[in-house]
């Protein structure tokens, strides 16, 4: 790359000059003084203008790349992206939703239209050399064209709070035919978490398990894998088994401070749907835990 080579050239040049000078003109006698050389205007003008020219070339190249990046081509595949603390929700043109995963076809211009629910995030796919901030209160867009089939990391690269580092996922670049098949395959939803989120709303779980902890049931944020204090004073770890049991036999283990009001979902959900719900609750692990109304046992209780 041009910029790298030029910079390397100057770095090596100056370093060599310094090293050469350091040895050639090292002091040989204690009282020795240097020459009376004071300056050279021609030289000054030279080493002002030449780097300036080179810098301008770099600038022009960078500006062209950037302008192309900011102005998306026509006929793109538009994906809607919402960032929130600390997950990405993505939506395909046909409405299919994913969490922390993005499936796209190869050799197609992809445009992401991005908004944020809370703080500033940044969608970054290192393999495609692109990123863009996701700013609350407005849309930002970015586009790219994947050219190789494969799975690539994407990250949040604008610091957004506690779990900034885990707010990422995978971009799967697929053959267009595979992509089309994946897109139309509603039943075998490739993303359990997204399916779980849908179920969470459809089954009206969301009406009681409010995220902010003010609902009739405890907030599920951060609960997965954490310790839960039960009404009888015992403590259980909220693992997959516990979540499954709580869905099917909600009266078995009641969280301290809550009434046994949850109906059973025995026979209403399939095993696969339970898995999906569990996958969704897993993603809530990184969500902010409310001070009151959390499912998690307080730290002191956990130590008991």
């Amino acid at each position, binding site marked *: 790359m041009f910029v790298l080579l030029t910079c390397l050239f100057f770095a090596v040049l100056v370093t060599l000059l310094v090293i050469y000078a350091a040895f050639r003109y090292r002091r040989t006698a204690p009282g020795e003084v240097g020459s009376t050389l004071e300056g050279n205007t021609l030289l000054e003008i030279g080493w002002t203008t030449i780097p300036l020219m080179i810098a301008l070339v770099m600038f022009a190249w960078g500006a062209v790349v950037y302008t192309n990046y900011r102005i998306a081509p026509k006929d793109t595949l538009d994906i809607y992206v919402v960032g929130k603390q600390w997950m990405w929700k993505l939506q395909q043109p046909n409405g299919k939703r994913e969490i922390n995963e993005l499936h796209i076809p190869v050799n197609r211009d992809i445009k992401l239209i991005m908004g944020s*629910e809370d703080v500033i995030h940044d969608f970054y796919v290192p393999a495609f050399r692109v990123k863009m901030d996701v700013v609350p209160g407005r849309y930002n867009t970015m586009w790219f064209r994947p050219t190789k089939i494969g799975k690539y990391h994407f990250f949040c690269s604008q610091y957004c709070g506690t779990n900034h580092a885990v707010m990422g996922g995978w971009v799967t670049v697929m053959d267009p035919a595979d992509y089309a098949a994946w897109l139309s395959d509603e039943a075998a939803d490739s993303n359990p978490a997204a399916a779980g989120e849908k179920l969470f709303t459809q089954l009206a779980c969301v009406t009681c398990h409010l995220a902010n902890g003010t609902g009739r049931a405890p907030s599920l944020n951060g609960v997965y894998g954490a310790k839960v204090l039960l009404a009888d004073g015992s403590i259980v770890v909220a693992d997959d088994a516990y979540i499954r049991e709580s869905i099917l036999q909600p009266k078995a283990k009641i969280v301290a401070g809550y009434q046994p009001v949850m109906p059973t979902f025995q026979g209403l959900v399939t095993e696969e749907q339970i898995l999906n719900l569990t996958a969704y609750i897993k993603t809530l692990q990184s969500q902010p835990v409310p001070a009151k109304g959390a499912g998690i046992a307080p730290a002191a209780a956990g130590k008991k």
Partner: protein
Amino acid sequence: MSEHVVSPKIYVVILLALLLGTYLTVSAALRDFGPWNIVIALTIATTKALLVVLFFMHAKYSPKRTQLVVMCAVFWLALLLFMTMSDYVSRVDYRGVRYPVSQNFFLTHSPHS
């Protein structure tokens, strides 16, 4: 450094000019000149500020150095305002909607529903 003593006569003249400026700017604000209202208000304000700086603050009679300091302040303030505004006025958001789009537009109006 012999200091310049400004005569009270000048001060009185400036005072009257400032009061006149206040009168003018208020009466101009109460009439509708379209976009020119802003221009008039700010021009009069700047004139008044200039009078205060030059005469009350003696910038007119001060060494060049002081005048340079004043100009630096104005220049950097202009820098801050104009360079930032250059971003805002040239922003074009998605679908050509100028900033800002309404809050949570995407969430309430899902593009596919």
